């Protein structure tokens, strides 16, 4: 049997979102034993390894799979979360998800030519976020009109957009660059389309503006400033000043609601943008926020007409797998053998439900040669 990699054990535990003590309790071993497995001082017995694999949802092959060297090269990780709610463990869990997904895409990229990452260089214009957002639009050959197909746009520029459940963690979205490939992970639990679009644009901001940072942006000293920049960038990217300004004829809530479908952003985001551009005064902004609170629009999912806002769609993973199966490069049930990670990871990476990877659910068709 190939050797078990200690780093994979730590990865599996972190992906599961549990402590060493939790894992030890679940497997009936001492926390010291788990620590030794993770440090490489000792290897788990085959029984413990099997129990570990069952518990964390990894196949045994995954524990023996060497890390591709470049997957460890992780760019800055940003977490878009409710303030103070992103715990370190939830961050680690998301980081491991990102690494496993990136590794899955590493496998995919050996078989399918994916869109080449095309992120504009935004670091220099970090102090002029408005200009950075405009430059990003220009470098992608966009004018100042609304962007409704945001997911398609990001993916066509080589930024992989994925939907993931962050469980109980209060994370809305996060982004990172792994091996030079940018990823945006959006929460799948959220039904609020307008907010999800803003989350995606906010993460794009981190990828463009803060690409020279490393580690967790949330642990950076200027985290609040980085978040402010990302919000301003998202706002300017989704609602370019000149055309948006011309659209705001009626600065009542109803007036903004009429623009929701056209711009695909929440009324709240439009009010903030209108204030930022000097279209409405401080007192008008305060009054509109008071009205929104009173109507319950500021609660998640509370703002009306979200159904008119297009979803952030992602298709690269699913279409790539379809391409491989349609050309008989691989069958769906073979994918988990090639990429031996938990079903959740494959589902996030490729947008395919776990049961479709199950050989027993595949059509039972055998091609027979024609005998002349």
């Amino acid at each position, binding site marked *: 049997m190939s050797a078990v990699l200690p780093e994979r054990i730590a990865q599996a535990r972190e992906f599961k979102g549990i402590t060493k003590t939790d894992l030890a309790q679940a497997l009936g071993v001492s926390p010291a034993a788990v620590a030794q497995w993770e440090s490489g001082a000792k290897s788990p017995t085959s029984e413990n390894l099997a129990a570990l694999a069952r518990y964390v949802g990894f196949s045994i092959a995954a524990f023996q799979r060497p890390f591709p060297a470049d997957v460890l090269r992780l760019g800055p990780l940003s977490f878009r979360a409710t303030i103070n709610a992103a715990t370190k463990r939830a961050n680690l869990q998301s980081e491991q998800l990102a690494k496993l997904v990136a590794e899955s895409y590493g496998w995919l990229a050996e078989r399918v030519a994916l869109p080449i990452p095309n992120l504009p260089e935004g670091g220099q214009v970090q102090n002029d976020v408005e200009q950075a957002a405009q430059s990003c639009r220009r470098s992608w050959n966009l004018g100042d009109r609304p962007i409704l197909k945001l997911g398609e746009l990001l993916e066509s520029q080589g930024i992989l957009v994925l939907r993931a459940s962050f469980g109980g963690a209060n994370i809305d979205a996060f982004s990172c660059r792994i091996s030079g490939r940018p990823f945006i992970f959006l929460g799948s639990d959220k039904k609020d389309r307008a907010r999800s679009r803003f989350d995606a644009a906010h993460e794009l901001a981190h990828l463009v503006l803060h690409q020279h940072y490393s580690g967790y942006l949330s642990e950076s000293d200027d985290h609040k400033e980085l978040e402010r920049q990302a919000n301003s960038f998202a706002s300017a990217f989704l609602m370019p000043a000149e055309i948006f300004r011309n659209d705001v004829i009626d600065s009542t809530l109803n007036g903004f609601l009429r623009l929701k479908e056209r711009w695909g952003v929440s009324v709240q985001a439009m009010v903030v943008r209108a204030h930022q551009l000097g279209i409405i005064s401080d007192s008008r902004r305060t009054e509109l926020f008071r009205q929104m609170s009173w109507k319950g629009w500021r609660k998640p999912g509370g703002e009306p007409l979200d159904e008119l806002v297009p979803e952030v769609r992602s298709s690269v993973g699913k279409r790539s797998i379809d391409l491989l199966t349609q050309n*008989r490069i691989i069958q769906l049930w073979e994918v988990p053998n090639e990429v031996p990670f938990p079903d959740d990871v494959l589902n996030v990476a490729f947008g395919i439900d776990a049961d479709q990877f199950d050989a027993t659910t595949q059509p039972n068709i055998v091609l027979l040669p024609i005998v002349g």
Partner: protein
Amino acid sequence: MPISSDFQALVAKDWSPENLMGVQRALRMAYENSLSICDAEKQPIFGTPNRPLVAGSVRWLAVDYYLNEACRLGWLKGITAKWVVLGGKKNEFPCHLVLTGANTSVIAIHLQQEEDIPRDSKYRRNTRVANEACPLLAGFEHMDENVEDALINMLLVHGDKNAEFAELRAYYSVENRSQYELIIGNIMGGAVAAPPSDAETVSEPSVALILNLSEQNQPSAGA
């Protein structure tokens, strides 16, 4: 009852193709959302034989809600929405949402089948009485100068499971509830209405097989 082409033109002023598109969108959204709300898989309390009763009420709420929103969002140009109380102990509800244009007044009602007769109500009876005397329906040439008094009252009948049909009808007989003039039919026909958009054009991200892989999997010519 004859309807002159002048009259049709007058109706079309309120119910332009764009406004009818707005009605179509509102109805589709109302049906989709009410079906989603009453989905027994999402909400087990709807998994009882009484579901259709509640689902009908939810659809009724949803249709009026989205027609009201359609007015608010400017999808129905020149039309205003107003809630009219039909009675009740406290004179607060039930209410009809009445859509009023320059020449027409419309309330929405669901029918199981296109040929069903709308249930009677005091409001609908009153509108039939008004229609019977309405100079617009009787013929444009007799039209009263006072258009406000001569509003033609129409029902927006809609129905089937997924809003497969919707028509504007003017019921005009006090005694015979089945008699109506079809004013505008087939509102749900054609493509799903979407507002014209001036959004940026974005193409699908491209993915392609890496060439040598696809070649490896082609059957060889001499085999």
